[in-house]
Each structure stands twice: as structure tokens, then as C-alpha cells.
């Protein structure tokens, strides 16, 4: 076969004639034929028959030409078996080809045809950029044609159209391939887009089906109530000339039809978004086609649950009886109950119609298709066995990825038409990926379609791209999924500095956490696990909780983006239920909290005290990034940072720091010791990204802590134009009073309140503090006001264990700059 199409062949010449007869020309020719025929008639009437015959001859030529075009040239089927390349080239494409056929000129031709435009738009290609990357040498087009011919072998029809040629042009030009890579598109993506186009062409070209008219309509009885409370699916399919959509689970249709044909009702079981409604519509089309004799004139009628359930009590019961009565009298009705659990007393606003439905099902007077979610069906099986055995249950299995893509692509066309937008192929890929990650409550393909729908309001210039879908997820789910842009990337690069603005020392802990977060945000770590998971070990009051809070503030933008659980409250086996309850209970469970706030720090305090069953659940949470509630609904932790804290080994850490001065290489021996002591299981420890050791604070660090807290006080006083400062002696006193060997720096916040804040309050009330003044507090100010306000506070005469006993171990961070502190932090830097 010649690698280039022969543009002088008969088929090529016919295609050219066909492409030259544009719709406008056709209109003119039709009009001309009518006018000439009218003129001919006039000529015969006027007695000039020769001119009349001449006019008829002209009109006849036009009519023959138009008929030849309409029934032959326009379609010009491929000449099979193909002997030459042009035998399988689409006539619209072949008709526009003119020598010399260079790749650049081919691109121009492709862009003029709807198939090429579809591919270019949906692959989101910049036409001029691609064209500039193509060769302008005629010899190079042979490779393109060869590639296109190769693509035809995998295509559904032997038709080399503009879409096929576009893919071939992209794949045979190194420049165009680079452009694709730059746009994060793989060659396989272009193949999938081509398959999408061809499936759509098949649907568009499918002739409208005629399912019968007057006689069919009269074959069923009057159903006025059903029409008021439901929708005749068969009728809508009939009016549309068929169900022009890709049907996944098509193999299940046979099972449904055979069950219905023998008079049984069917329970369709699949999660939301799993394709139940689509399958029922496909069933309606199948029945309309009349291939099954038993169900030849049956119509599928969907009941509107929300409308029906707006009635209640006796009224509702009577309505249900009327609806079933009409369905029975109609004689050829299949009722479809979408969200069927609402009719069986499960869920909000539900009504239990088991007693009405059971006799109907048993008598087989009316066939019903009831759609259930798996968990509702399981509940039904447990509570209403008689009812469930009356249904033939059909479970829709999970679709393979390629099937899911077909359904999403098919629905994309509807979304585009309905909303006047363009949804790019990369947006489809992203919707598939992100819906899998963040919409676990729904099933494929529904959730991806749902996400694309949610992306429509965020479209820019009516185009939905990968970034649009990411924006929709970020706005609706409150998570960050897009590539970190300039300000956020900068924040991530300087995460340690930002944390140290609020956090004194613990340099090693901060570095470990920051590195893990950068890995997570840059998309280097697994997307199927939490962004980061850490076990913080160390004595009380050294900053474990403060680091968690700082992370929430710096990484998630607000320190309240934190879900905090005291695991010492989960020590009994029955506490598992409390932790996992789906939110229907009064208490807010971990799962309901993470559903509300998926982008958060999950802080599990005193993790070692939780019951072993709960620790086993944590294994799943750390491993798979999700937990499942009592109803079987998953909740994702994949956008959160998991931090577990524990005081286990605190004494060892303190002793080690005293003896060695550093925690370098101490993690492993400590972990081994904790495992040997049975405080932690190795499988739990190994699932954390990092085990971070916190060392006790020394005097200098405590002084910095006090200064950070003082900054918070000044932030509050800024409203009154006041500033407070401490003399070195006063600072030393606070450090001594704020440190406790058992609680670390935890008492510091209380001491500052009772000394500094009290002292300032007294000065303000006595009129000793004027706006703009700087209040300097010395030791007497603190003790005097402290004694006057609280005689029970920690007196200087009862000194704490001097912090200087703890030698400095790690390098000191620079003194935190006067930086963004919240106006009044709810807790101090060392409230851990």
C-alpha cells in the first residue's frame, strides 16, 4: 500500500466534489431547481415549450446532482477491503486534502473539521503551538499517514478521520510530543481521547429509534396518580429516540430482564453513583425495543420518593395503595424505586411501607425494581428478611477503570451541552483521581461526574481544566490539592522558620516534621496515606502539643484546624464505637470530625493509653489513610496530619539528655525499650513517618518561651497603645515560677496571667498607664500584684527545680522576631 493517499484517485475526486457542495450551495441549488421548474411551467403555459424543455433539463441536472450528493457523496462509505490509503479516509477529510500534503498543512485541514476540533479542544492544545512544532516537508507526512493507518487497526470502524490524523500528527512529531509532555499528557491519553471521540461519533450517528406510537400508548391503562408522583422513564427514552449513552454493566441487563420476565421484582444493589439509574434507563430502552416477548409493552415508571414522602400517616398509606393499584390496573408497569431505603423506614424522613409492599411482591401483580445502597440492603436483610427474599438481588460490581472513563466521558458531553462549557480530557483524568481520593462516600463513576459538575462554577472562560477541578476540590472539601504556588511554596520551604516563630527550640523535631510535610505537599509521598504521621515522645510541657498547634496554624492556616482527642478516654473496648460512630449520635466522633474538617491536624494525646482495639484501628488509619464507620462509610485522613503524643519514655529522655547532652541516635534504643516494655507494638511504631523525641527545656529556652508569651500580651495591649516589658530579674522570676519538673513549661501561661497581666491591670485601673507608654515591670511589681490578687500562687520562696540543671543540648534558634502572632492566643507555646 502506498504510504501517501492518492489525491487523483476517483474516491479523492468524489470527496472533493462532496466537500465543495456546502450547505449554502445545497440551499441555493434547491431553490434554483424550484425556480427553474416554475419557469419551465410558465414557458409551457406561455407557448414557448422549447425553453420549457431546456429549463426541465437544467432542473433535472440539479435534482440528480443533489440526490447523488445526499445519498452517496455525503456519506461515501470506505472502499473495503482497502487497497489504497484513500479507501479508508473519511470523505470530509479526503475532500479537503490538497498537494503538497505536509504535516503543517495536514494540521490546518484537521483544524477545519469537527473531529479535529473536538480532539484539539478536549486535549486542550494550542493549535498554533502544535503547528509550529510540525514539519513542513512533504516527505515527513508519510510517517504520519503510517501512524494513522496503525491507529485504525485499533479503532472501532475502518474510518481514518481528522481525529485519527490529529493523534498521528502529535505522535510522529518530536516537538509536538514534547508539547504533550509539557502539558502532562501521555500518548495513551491521546488514544483514550480518540476512543472517546469515536464512541461519541457512533452515538451521534446512531439513527433515532422508533418504538411504536399510538397503539403502544393505548395499550396501558390510565395512571393519573403515577404520572403525578413519578416519571415515565420509558416515555422519555422513547421521545429521545433511544438511550444514547454508554451503558456500563450492560451484561447485568440480561439478568434483570430474565427476572422481570418471570414476574419477579429486582433489588439493584450498588453504592450511590454506581450506575443504578443508568442501568434502569437502558432497561427501559431494551423493553421498548420489544425483543423480550413477556415484557414487550412494559413501561418503566420511576417514583419520586421525596414528593411521595411529603405526605404522612394515613394520607401516605392511602397514596401508596393508589399508586400500586394504578400500577396493577395498568397491567404493563414496572415501578422503579430509586433510594428504596426511604420507603422502608431507613434514613431521615423515611416511611416503612413493608406491610403494603409485601403482598404486592408476593402476588407478583406488579414488578418492582428497588435500588439500594449495599449497607441499606444489609440492614434490610437483617431486619426484614421476608421482604428481601421477595426480591431477586442483583449487585452491581465495581467497574474497571477503562469502563469508568467511558461513562465519565459520555456524561461529560451532557454536562458540556447543558452548561455551555468545555471539559478538557485532563479535567476528566483529574476528576477521576481526586474524586477517588476525596469523595469516598460515593462510588465511581458517579463521584467523578459529580466532581466535574461541581467544577463548573469555577470554570475560567467556560473551560474546565485540571486546575479548575483542583480548585473545586479545594473550595468544596477544604483541602489543598493543587501544586504549591509561590506564597505557599515559600511557606513550605521556610516551614521551620515559621514554626520557630511560635515554637522555641526542639530544632530536630521541627526539622523532621517540616521535611515530612514538604514531601507530602510536593506529591512525593503516597497519596493514599495521611500527609504526615508522627509520634511525639517526650516529657510533659516541652512543646509536643504546641508543635501540633503550630503546624495547624502554619500549614493549614489556622490553629483551630485541629482535631484533638485525649486517648486516655478511649481505654475500654466499647470506646471503639464512640470513636467510629457515623455522627448520628449526639457526641461528635473522630470520623464525623474528620468529615467536617478533612484538612486538619489530628492530635491523639497520650496515645499509649488507648485500648489495643483502638490502636489496631490506628494501624489502618496510618496505613490506608481512611477508617470506616459503623454504616460502612469510609472517612479519609489522606489530607490530614496525624500526630500522636506520649509521655512514655520521658524519664529516659530526661536522663539521656542529662548524661549525654543530646538525643542524637537515641530514638532506636528508646523505641526498642518501649516495645520491650509492652508500651507500644512494633507494628504501630513502624507505621509512623517519624518518631520525634522532645527534650526537656533549659533555662535559656524557658526565658524565650516567656518572651514569646509576653509578645502575645503586648499584642493584646496594642489596642490600648500600651507596651509591657520585663526587667531581666523579673523575667528570671517568671521563668523560675513557670517551670515545674513534672509539668515542664506548662504552668508558664498561668504564671504570666497571674503576675504580668495582673500587674498591668492594676496599673491601668490606678491610672498609671497612659496610651503610648511602655510599662516596665520589675520583681516587686510582679510579686506585689500577684500576692494581692492570689495569695495561693507559686511563691518565690518555694523555688522550682532550677532549669539550669538541664544542660543545653541543641543549637538555639534565633530569638523569634516580632511577628504575626494571633491577637490573643488561646494557649501558650508550651501548653502541651
Amino acid at each position: 500500500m502506498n504510504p501517501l493517499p492518492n489525491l487523483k484517485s476517483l474516491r479523492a475526486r468524489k470527496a472533493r466534489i462532496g466537500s465543495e457542495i456546502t450547505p449554502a450551495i445545497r440551499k441555493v441549488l434547491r431553490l434554483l431547481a424550484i425556480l427553474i421548474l416554475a419557469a419551465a411551467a410558465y414557458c409551457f403555459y406561455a407557448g414557448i415549450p422549447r425553453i420549457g424543455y431546456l429549463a426541465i433539463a437544467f432542473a433535472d441536472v440539479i435534482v440528480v446532482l443533489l440526490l447523488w450528493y445526499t445519498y452517496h457523496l455525503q456519506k461515501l462509505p470506505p472502499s473495503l477491503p482497502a487497497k489504497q490509503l484513500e479507501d479508508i479516509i473519511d470523505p470530509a477529510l479526503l475532500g479537503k486534502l490538497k498537494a503538497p500534503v505536509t504535516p503543517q498543512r495536514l494540521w490546518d485541514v484537521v483544524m477545519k473539521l469537527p473531529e479535529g476540533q473536538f480532539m484539539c479542544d478536549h486535549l486542550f492544545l494550542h493549535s498554533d503551538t502544535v503547528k509550529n512544532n510540525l514539519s513542513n516537508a512533504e516527505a515527513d507526512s508519510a510517517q504520519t499517514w503510517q501512524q494513522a493507518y496503525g491507529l485504525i487497526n485499533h479503532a472501532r470502524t475502518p474510518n481514518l478521520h481528522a481525529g485519527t490524523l490529529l493523534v498521528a500528527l502529535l505522535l510522529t512529531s518530536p516537538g509536538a510530543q514534547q508539547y504533550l509532555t509539557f502539558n502532562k499528557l501521555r500518548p495513551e491519553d491521546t488514544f483514550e481521547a480518540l476512543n472517546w471521540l469515536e464512541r461519541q461519533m457512533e452515538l451521534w450517528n446512531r439513527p433515532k429509534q422508533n418504538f411504536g406510537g399510538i397503539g403502544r400508548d393505548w395499550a396501558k391503562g390510565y395512571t393519573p396518580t403515577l404520572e403525578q408522583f413519578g416519571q415515565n422513564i420509558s416515555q422519555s427514552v422513547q421521545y429521545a429516540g433511544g438511550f444514547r449513552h454508554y451503558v456500563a454493566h450492560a451484561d447485568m441487563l440480561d439478568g434483570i430482564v430474565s427476572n422481570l420476565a418471570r414476574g419477579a421484582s429486582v433489588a439493584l444493589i450498588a453504592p450511590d453513583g454506581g450506575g443504578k439509574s443508568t442501568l434502569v434507563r437502558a432497561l427501559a430502552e431494551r423493553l421498548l425495543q420489544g425483543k423480550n416477548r413477556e415484557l414487550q409493552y412494559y413501561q418503566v415508571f420511576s417514583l419520586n420518593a421525596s414528593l411521595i414522602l411529603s405526605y404522612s400517616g394515613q394520607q401516605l398509606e392511602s397514596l401508596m395503595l393508589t399508586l400500586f393499584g394504578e400500577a396493577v390496573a395498568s397491567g404493563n408497569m414496572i415501578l422503579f424505586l430509586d433510594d428504596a431505603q426511604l420507603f422502608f423506614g431507613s434514613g431521615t424522613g423515611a416511611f416503612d411501607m413493608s406491610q403494603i409492599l409485601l403482598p404486592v411482591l408476593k402476588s407478583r401483580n406488579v414488578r418492582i425494581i428497588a435500588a439500594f445502597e449495599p449497607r441499606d440492603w444489609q440492614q434490610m436483610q437483617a431486619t426484614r428478611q421476608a421482604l428481601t427474599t421477595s426480591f431477586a438481588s442483583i449487585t452491581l460490581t465495581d467497574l474497571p477503570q477503562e469502563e469508568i472513563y467511558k461513562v465519565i466521558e459520555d456524561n461529560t458531553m451532557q454536562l458540556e451541552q447543558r452548561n455551555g462549557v468545555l471539559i478538557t480530557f485532563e479535567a476528566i483524568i483529574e476528576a477521576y483521581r481526586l474524586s477517588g481520593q476525596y469523595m469516598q462516600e460515593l462510588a465511581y463513576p458517579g463521584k467523578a461526574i459529580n466532581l466535574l459538575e461541581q467544577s463548573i462554577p469555577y470554570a475560567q472562560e467556560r473551560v474546565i481544566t485540571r486546575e479548575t477541578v483542583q480548585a473545586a476540590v479545594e473550595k468544596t472539601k477544604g483541602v489543598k490539592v493543587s501544586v504549591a504556588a509561590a506564597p505557599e511554596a515559600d511557606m513550605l520551604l521556610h516551614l521551620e522558620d515559621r514554626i520557630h516563630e511560635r515554637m522555641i527550640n526542639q530544632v530536630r523535631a521541627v526539622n523532621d516534621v517540616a521535611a515530612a510535610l514538604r514531601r507530602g505537599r510536593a506529591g512525593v509521598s503516597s497519596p493514599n496515606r495521611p500527609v504526615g504521621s508522627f509520634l511525639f515522645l517526650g516529657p510533659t510541657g516541652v512543646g509536643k502539643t504546641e508543635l501540633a498547634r503550630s503546624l495547624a496554624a502554619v500549614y493549614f492556616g489556622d490553629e483551630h484546624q485541629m482535631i484533638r482527642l485525649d486517648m486516655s478516654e478511649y481505654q475500654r473496648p466499647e470506646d471503639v464505637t464512640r470513636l467510629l460512630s457515623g455522627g448520628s449520635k449526639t457526641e461528635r466522633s473522630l470520623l464525623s470530625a474528620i468529615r467536617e474538617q478533612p484538612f486538619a491536624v489530628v492530635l491523639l494525646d497520650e496515645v499509649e493509653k488507648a485500648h489495643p482495639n483502638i490502636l489496631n484501628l490506628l494501624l489502618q488509619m496510618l496505613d490506608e489513610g481512611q477508617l470506616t464507620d459503623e454504616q460502612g462509610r469510609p472517612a479519609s485522613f489522606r489530607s490530614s496530619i496525624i500526630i500522636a503524643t506520649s509521655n512514655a519514655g520521658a524519664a529516659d529522655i530526661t536522663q539521656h539528655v542529662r548524661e549525654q547532652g543530646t538525643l542524637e541516635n537515641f530514638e532506636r534504643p528508646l523505641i526498642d525499650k518501649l516495645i520491650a516494655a509492652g508500651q507500644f507494638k512494633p507494628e504501630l511504631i513502624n507505621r509512623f513517618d517519624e518518631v520525634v523525641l522532645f527534650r526537656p527545656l533549659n533555662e535559656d529556652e524557658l526565658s524565650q518561651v516567656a518572651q514569646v508569651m509576653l509578645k502575645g500580651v503586648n499584642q493584646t495591649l496594642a489596642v490600648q497603645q500600651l507596651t509591657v516589658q520585663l526587667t531581666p530579674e523579673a523575667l528570671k522570676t517568671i521563668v523560675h515560677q513557670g517551670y515545674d519538673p513534672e509539668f515542664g513549661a506548662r504552668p508558664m501561661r498561668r504564671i504570666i496571667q497571674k503576675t504580668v497581666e495582673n500587674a498591668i491591670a492594676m496599673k491601668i485601673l490606678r491610672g498609671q498607664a497612659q496610651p503610648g507608654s511602655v510599662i516596665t515591670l520589675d520583681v516587686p511589681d510582679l510579686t506585689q500584684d500577684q500576692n494581692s490578687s492570689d495569695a495561693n500562687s507559686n511563691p518565690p520562696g518555694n523555688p522550682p527545680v532550677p532549669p539550669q540543671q538541664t544542660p543545653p543540648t541543641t543549637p538555639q534558634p534565633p530569638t523569634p522576631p516580632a511577628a504575626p502572632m494571633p491577637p490573643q492566643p488561646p494557649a501558650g507555646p508550651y501548653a502541651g
Partner: protein
Amino acid sequence: MIFDMLRWWYVSGWLLALQRIATWTKGVEQAFSLVILLQTLFSPWKRIITVGGKGLDAKFHAALDNFLSSCIGFVVRLFVILGALVAMTVVFVSGVVIAAIWPLLPLVFIGAIVKAVTG
């Protein structure tokens, strides 16, 4: 090119014109659902039936109601069947005429030119 066009005209094109007779006639039959109308010719109108009571009188009234319903159904359907048959005949005849004229159309040009020249 002209030869190819004529070949299509007298082979595939003419066959298409003949096939259209069946397609069009079947289309009209489907629009009226003639087969369903015939199958349900004696069925009660819109499946409106009365279920008989216990007494003889009630049974008689029910039978009378159902007979009336079937009569209405029969009359309505009969008229529609007649209408469908007329429409199908018209479409069929039109299709036959077109199929008959089809091979003559290219010849009309020659005939008209000859007539124009010879008068």
C-alpha cells in the same frame, strides 16, 4: 466520474430507492403501532374494567360495563387502524412511484434536451 455516477444511480441508488419503500411503510406502521392495535382490538378502552360484585345484578352490571369499554376500544382502534392503512397505502404508492421514476431521471435530461432542440 459521470460513468461512476451513473453506475451508482442505476445500482446502489435505485436499490436504495426500492429499500425506502419498505422503510417508509414500516415507519408509518410503527407510528401507529398497527400490530399492537390489532392485538388489542377487542381489549377494554384504556384497560378500564369493572370487577364484578357478589350478586347476579352486580355481575351483570360489571359485564355490561366491560362490554361497553371493549366496544369503545374496538371502535376507536378500528378507526385508527383504517387511518393507518390509508397512510401506509399512500406512503407505499409514493415510494413505488419514486422508485419507478428514479431510473428515468438521468434520461429526462437527454429527453428534454432533444425536445428542446427538435421542438
